[in-house]
């Protein structure tokens, strides 16, 4: 626990440091009483920068969807700063895996009703798992690939049966993301992907879906029949669509909205906005939503297939400069494929690549790439992902950093669909800047970055043609290792080998920031706060 707090603290910077204390106090209290006393009532207006085309979190497990839908549709369990396995129970009250890893038994919460008044039962969980999570959901297709059946011995017990040993550790870590439960009575016998309830959500959560005005807002209202005692606090949450980044900051300053999450207020504006009376900057609440800044490498390029060249590139990057300049301090230098704020898995003993131009030059000389008459050794095409301004800025930095060691980098700037196609389908790149997400367990979306044999066209996966039999074996073994300690040990090896062999180069890892009115209480009090249910969030008058 204390080590967790330290790593969280080190993520916090400058103006926000006053909040560390508050956060530490919050997390030190038992989970049931961890909420500050928030007053009842009020309308919270929140900035949203996009309108997901499918708002159903059981089908689309993504942060953009969860941001809105997590208030309406609940998972079996949510991430927590403390508690059993760092989880807080939601629709499930307990979960237990069998020794052989072939079954997991969930006890479900009693007395829960859907927003349309029907009771919530194990049949809903079984239906969601077999008909939605496993066949349709982007992440569920991976996590529940071996799910055979879900048995429902009674209304409040669901037993998941797997065809191959499935680690309870993985399922536990995946619970907040992949287990949003849908009402069977509204989906059964319909075409699930086109069900009207995918936009007009019906769930068990603290807020009901009330209204959507395309291009303007989503409106959620209080669920008076919510199972959480005295919850929710707010009467209404409105997600107001503000596609322009400057618009979110202006609307906050003008008092038209009370909260902007996911760094919708750009980092460069934070210093100014933190000085506006009545506004606060919160860096907590993203600990389990860590994004990673990586250099993706196309190993089909013969020059880059040489480990010495990759090591030289790693030595040429000044990670601290990147953290201070590109992220203005709101990030941490990365050491490997698992971020430091995932203490369950993080392995600090991996080879490090200190910023060292001389060493990088020496490595390139050794690799047989002497400088030509104009001082350059060879040329590379760099495709920076357009997803964040930071990924683009890092691309500009990387170009300069590699010029220092005689690599001539041409930047190829694409918009989102073109970038995805160029890197993940056509492999038309030498190096690329990417921003994968660590989702609580390496098996969910991290191992796929280095594993071989992945079909062309899978986004955010190893499309650089890298193949390492040793790594593949570890990944395969961990996928079936039921014992938590043994599995964690395998992932320690995984991190060491990735850092040694550099299939990709991890540069930095970052969470987001929230800017909120000081009237909003209980902001950022769990590690997935922005995408959690906000049942204890309140507004003081």
């Amino acid at each position, binding site marked *: 626990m204390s080590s967790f707090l330290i790593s969280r603290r080190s993520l916090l910077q400058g103006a926000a440091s006053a909040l560390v204390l508050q956060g530490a106090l919050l997390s030190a209290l038992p989970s049931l009483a961890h909420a500050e006393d928030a007053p009842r009532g009020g309308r919270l207006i929140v900035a949203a920068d996009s309108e997901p085309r499918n708002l159903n979190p059981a089908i689309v497990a993504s942060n953009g969807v969860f941001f809105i839908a997590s208030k309406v549709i609940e998972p079996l369990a949510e991430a927590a700063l403390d508690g059993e396995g760092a989880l807080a129970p939601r629709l499930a009250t307990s979960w237990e895996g069998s020794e052989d890893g072939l079954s997991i038994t969930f006890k479900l919460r009693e007395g829960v009703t859907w927003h349309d008044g029907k009771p919530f039962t194990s049949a809903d969980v079984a239906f969601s798992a077999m008909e939605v999570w496993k066949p349709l959901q982007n992440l569920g297709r991976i996590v529940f690939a071996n799910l055979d059946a879900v048995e429902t011995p009674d209304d409040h017990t669901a037993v998941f049966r797997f065809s191959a040993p499935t680690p309870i550790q993985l399922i536990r870590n995946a619970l907040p993301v992949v287990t949003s439960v849908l009402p069977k009575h509204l989906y059964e016998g319909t075409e699930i992907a086109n069900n009207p309830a995918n936009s007009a959500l019906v769930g068990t959560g603290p807020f009901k879906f009330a209204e959507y005005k395309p291009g303007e807002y989503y409106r959620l209202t209080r669920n008076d029949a919510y199972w959480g005692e005295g919850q929710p606090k707010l009467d209404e949450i409105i997600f107001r669509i503000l596609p*322009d980044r*400057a618009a979110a900051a202006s*609307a906050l300053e003008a008092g038209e909205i009370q909260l902007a999450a996911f760094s919708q207020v750009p980092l460069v504006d934070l210093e100014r906005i933190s000085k506006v009376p009545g506004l606060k900057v919160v860096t907590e609440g993203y600990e389990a939503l860590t994004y990673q800044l990586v250099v993706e490498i196309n190993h089909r390029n013969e020059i880059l297939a040489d480990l010495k060249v990759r090591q030289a590139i790693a030595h040429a990057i000044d990670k601290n400069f990147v953290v201070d300049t590109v992220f203005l301090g709101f990030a941490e230098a990365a050491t490997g494929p698992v971020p430091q704020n995932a203490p369950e898995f993080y392995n600090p003993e991996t080879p490090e690549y200190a910023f060292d131009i001389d060493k990088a030059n020496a490595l390139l000389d050794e690799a047989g790439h002497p400088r030509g008459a104009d001082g350059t050794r060879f040329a590379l095409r760099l495709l920076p992902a357009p997803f964040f301004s930071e990924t683009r800025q890092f691309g500009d930095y990387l170009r300069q950093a590699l010029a220092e060691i005689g690599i001539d980098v041409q930047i190829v700037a694409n918009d989102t*669909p073109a970038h995805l196609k160029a890197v993940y389908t056509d492999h038309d790149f030498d190096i690329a800047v990417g921003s994968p997400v660590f989702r609580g367990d390496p098996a969910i979306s991290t191992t796929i970055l280095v594993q071989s044999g992945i079909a062309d066209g899978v986004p955010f996966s190893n499309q650089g043609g890298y193949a390492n039999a040793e790594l593949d074996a570890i990944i395969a073994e961990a996928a079936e290792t039921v014992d938590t300690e043994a599995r964690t040990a395998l992932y320690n090896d995984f991190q060491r080998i990735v850092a040694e062999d550099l299939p990709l180069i991890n540069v930095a890892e970052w969470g987001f920031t929230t800017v909120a009115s000081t009237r909003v209480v209980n902001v950022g009090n769990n590690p997935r706060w922005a995408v959690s249910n906000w049942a204890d969030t309140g507004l003081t008058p």
Partner: protein
Amino acid sequence: MNRAWLLARRRILSSIPVLLIVVIGTFFLLEMASGDAVDAYLVTLGGDAGLAQSLRERYGLDQSALARLWLYAGSLARLDLGFSVAFNRPILDLILERLPNTLWLMGSAIAMAFTFGTLFGIVAGARPGSAADRALSIGSLALYAVPSFWLGLVLSLVFAVQLRWFPTAGIETIASGKTGFARALDIARHLVLPVSALGFIYLALFLRMMRAGMAEVWRQDFVLAARAKGLARRRIVLRHVARNALLPLVTMLGLQAATMLGGSVVIESVFAIPGFGRLAHEAVAARDAPLLMGIIVVSAVLVIVVNLLVDLAYAWLDPRVGSGEASS
């Protein structure tokens, strides 16, 4: 009336090939851009290869470009705009939902620009070289040089964030429950800043055209005649000089309607107005070809209609126009 109808029919018939070229051109332009609608969608998902494949099959994106263009042209011929992959909704619904906002924005901006541009132009052109003329000319030149997105941001910072006279963004107060006159007033309040940001540049344009036109008319013989008749200066300015200088402005009005549609992309994003321009931007970002083509077809129709109205207004202002077409 007959003359107007003939003019309208001729315009509509001649616009069909234009529309066809626009549709095919748009389709191939978007086809040349790398990545498709599923790539654009997968960025929020990740997922495995099977997912991408099944999505492509579902939306017909696994077919060849020509097959898709043929399908689209077929449905367009039946006046069916099709289904948006990016929004998962019928395109007609999306367009009908967004179009009114843009029409309000553009209509108000054009009306504002035309009215004040003409008025100030008359003031400036009434006495070319006077102090008022110089001040207005310099002011309009400065205004004309300012990009509209920057103007939008500055207006929003000063009048919405600092002074709080107007809301920062949106088309109306969210979930306010206002109806009738109160709602109209609310929308008007929201439109002040975006209309100013969008319209000022055109105001400057109209002002300068009016002034230049009047300066020229002043030199014409009939003005000299009017003066010799001893008409009051006010009457000469309004009835003789301004009226004749107004004609080119009406032509300009039709031309600017099209450029303004382009300008609204930026303004709608800055002020978070769910309009047509923003929809077009989102359609390109999501590689939603049918949606973009739907938007372009409707925009083209819009521009054709505006120009038709301009022609009719022209015929009314100047009886010489259109008489040849009517007799043919």
